């Protein structure tokens, strides 16, 4: 299985632990990730806020480069990238004016967008292409006794997600169960973490982060499993500020790929677990 890999800016920056753990885990499962040559920022939400056509052009450049370099789908691990690239695809499929404008812009770089490569999230690849059974077979150190709250974030399932429920997705639940962990019933699975508002409007943004941490704590979770660099950053980085405002809710947040790596018996240092602010001690102790 070979995919074009679109890591996105976060996986090269604050979320590099996601990139570090995703690569060996995928390798172990026989998934080849070929990084798209000279990829650029997906545009995220900020770009959509300024210029619709430009935002589509940004996404289209990445897809066009991937398409020109061979067949295969694109894997985008960051929820924001996943959404932005899918939004681009939907826009270009349904809106001929934007498509024409974007093609014209791509021509500047001698690129053409065809829309043949689908944009997919690692979660979908893991559950539907690799399969739960294969994941299960690779588990050598089950995450026994760990109670984990699966947190999907908002931009994976909404509004375009085709592989899971928009309100109650279960792909990650299934993986966690396969890893031997106990999945906490977590109704805030897809509630927004606050996104960039934690920095720009902390009062509002941090409250959202706090609600998620608090609910996970109330439900007795040891860990929160995430699949998005921004979610992980928000849930991991503001414990002191949150404690000052609303009281402590100290639950570590780790990437699903880090959990898989631990369960697969990959060396801890390869998985970027040391990059957490709040160390996932229970995880390290359990395995």
């Amino acid at each position, binding site marked *: 299985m070979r995919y074009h890999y679109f890591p996105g800016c976060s996986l090269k920056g604050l979320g590099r632990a996601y990139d570090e753990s995703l690569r060996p885990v995928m390798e172990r499962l026989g998934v080849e990730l070929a990084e798209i040559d000279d990829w650029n920022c997906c545009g995220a939400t900020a770009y959509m806020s300024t210029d619709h056509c430009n935002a589509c052009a940004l996404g289209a450049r990445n897809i066009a480069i991937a398409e020109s370099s061979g067949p295969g789908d694109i894997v985008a691990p960051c929820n924001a990238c996943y959404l932005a690239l899918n939004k681009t695809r939907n826009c270009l499929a349904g809106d001929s004016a934007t498509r024409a404008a974007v093609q014209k812009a791509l021509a500047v770089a001698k690129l053409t967008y065809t829309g043949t490569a689908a944009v997919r999230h690692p979660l979908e690849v893991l559950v539907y292409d690799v399969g739960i059974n294969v994941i299960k077979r690779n588990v050598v150190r089950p995450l026994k006794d760990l109670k984990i709250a699966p947190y999907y974030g908002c931009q994976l399932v909404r509004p375009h997600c085709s592989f899971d*429920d928009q*309100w*109650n997705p279960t792909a990650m639940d299934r993986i966690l169960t396969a890893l031997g962990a106990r999945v906490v019933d977590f*109704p*805030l699975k897809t509630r927004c973490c606050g996104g960039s508002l934690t920095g720009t409007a902390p009062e509002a943004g941090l409250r959202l982060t706090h*609600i998620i941490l608090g*609910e996970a704590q*109330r439900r007795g979770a040891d860990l929160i499993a995430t699949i998005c660099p921004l979610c992980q950053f928000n849930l991991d980085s503001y414990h002191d500020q949150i404690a000052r405002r609303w009281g402590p809710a100290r639950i570590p947040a780790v990437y699903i790929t880090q959990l898989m790596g631990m369960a697969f018996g990959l060396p801890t240092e390869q998985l970027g677990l040391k990059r957490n602010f709040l160390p996932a001690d229970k995880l390290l102790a359990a395995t």
Partner: protein
Amino acid sequence: MSNDESIRTGFYVCHCGHNISDVVDCTAVARYASTLAGVMVSRDYKYMCSSPGQELIRQDILEHKLNRVVVASCSPLLHEHTFRNAVAAGGLNPFLFQMVNIREHDAWVHADRAAATAKAQALVSAAIRRVALHKPLQATRAPIHPDVLVVGGGIAGIHAALTLANAGKKVYLVERQPSIGGHMAQFDKTFPTLDCAACILTPKMSAVRSHKNIVLWTYSEVAKVDGYVGNYTVTVRRKARYVDENLCVGCQECIDACVFKVPKFPDPFNLGMSMQKPIYIPFPQAVPQAAVIDPDRCIQLKTGKCKKTCVEACADRKAINLNQKEQLLEIKVGSIITATGFKLFDAKRLPEYGYGRYPDVMTTIELERLVSSSGPTGGELRLRSGKPPTAVGFILCVGSRDMRTNRWCSRTCCMHSMKLAQIVRERTGAQVTVFYIDIRAPGKGYEEFYDRSLQQGVQFVRGRVAEVSDCALSPDEAGKLVIRVEDTLAGFVRRVPLDLVVLAVGMEPQADAQEMRRILNMSCSAEGWFLEKHPKMAPVSTFTDGVFIAGCCQGPKDIPDSIAQAGAAAAEALALIDAGGIDQEPNTAYIRGEECSGCKSCISLCPYAAISFDAEKQKAVINPALCKGCGTCVASCPSGSIGQNLFEDQEVFEEINGVLDYV
């Protein structure tokens, strides 16, 4: 065009108020028609279907000695009959008439006046060319079998059956469930009068059972319908009940004696909130008052290894017959009333409301059973924890007015919820809040009922609830179900902690509505409701003559409306029967004997076996009484020796020529 010099056509174009004339230049159309061959009179008029409009035609026929008439107005499916009558009133054969549809097919679908007018002119040209070839025809009259089939034994079916039976007609009432009564039997009280549902329904159910003119077949389904108006042959599948309902007296001794000492299977009548045994009576007021055995649960029927204590208990009444087999019965009826009802929206389709996840989130129908004195708790409202509720919320429009699920308004949920809100308030004193988008209380006495709810202290919050969760953000929310909703009138978002959330689930078409539609040759709307012939003028008729619809199978409605419609459907059936016969469109096919080569290719094509072969003359023969006028044989005759009245080849060719007339 005809060579017949004596063709004298009258042409009339209708403005239909402004409906047509706003888009089509009617005067130009009339002027154009006046230039066409054979046209003696060409008029435009505001309302051709009105009495003066029809009178115009009649007068002109007499005055101008017209022998053909063409009217350009609405769809022939709507007013062809009207104008044929007008033509007949002028003393002309009604089939020397042709109608042009310039409303539905032109004025209502185009905006460009010039293009619409040109199209109207071409269509008019086609009709004027065609009508010249029309021949005088005689409608045939088919007899009507006086018996009526009513499908569905809910309140609509019951009412229709009783109305017909009281008029002296024989009625077959077929119901799929083991008892008649439908959804209404599950209700505690009915709005807006709050009278007890059982008290008003049970007498009608017993009347059905005892009526000498009604044959009641419960636990039965319509399997097949053949024939046509006045003459339907219906096959009914009577499922094996394993109890002879004529011998069973409803004493329940068999149920007591069943080897299952305690009931352990979910009882569908109480929506699984109580249990039943493999042998059961659906509910206390069931009609017929006879037991039924579930073959999937009865040990004897599943394995053949049971002590058969039920048979023992029944003793010499001998009502239990474990060898009973499914039966297929064939009946003859002249008309059919379809009253197959609705199904409730599955609240699990909206996961944000937590139905199926939180035990104290329930649907209106479940609450209805819980507050009913014959329900699983004897009418006592308790949370799953056993405590009485102190704060109850109703969420309206669950699966209604929502493009993600069902886009229609289910029409009854506002009133239904207010009724339950009043009952809950009365019984428990709990704080009750109704979350609504718009309160729809348009029936007689309904607005007063809304007012009464307000007077009784029911709170109303205008806003569509976004989510129900058990995530507590403050101590007062702990252990409660929290609703998140914008109070759109106050203009802010609220979190409302409740201990019972009731979802007012909407109505949707029965799961097998499409199958039923095929069996009865009806149409469905895009949503899946059975389609009436005309939404205003023929609300209980269908496109299939002799098949009528009543109640919620046509669209959501409350009890009064269902009963009114059932009465109307019964009256339509009665009118049909008492007319003694029905005029049939004389669009039958016929063989031009001299031209038939006797190749027999038409014979196998006829779905009605109307064509036979005269071995002596070596020619095909069409029986006009059996021909339904589809014209399939006409199109396939290699020697062109089959003609079809009203749709002759030449008439169609003229029409093709005409529609290609571009002015």
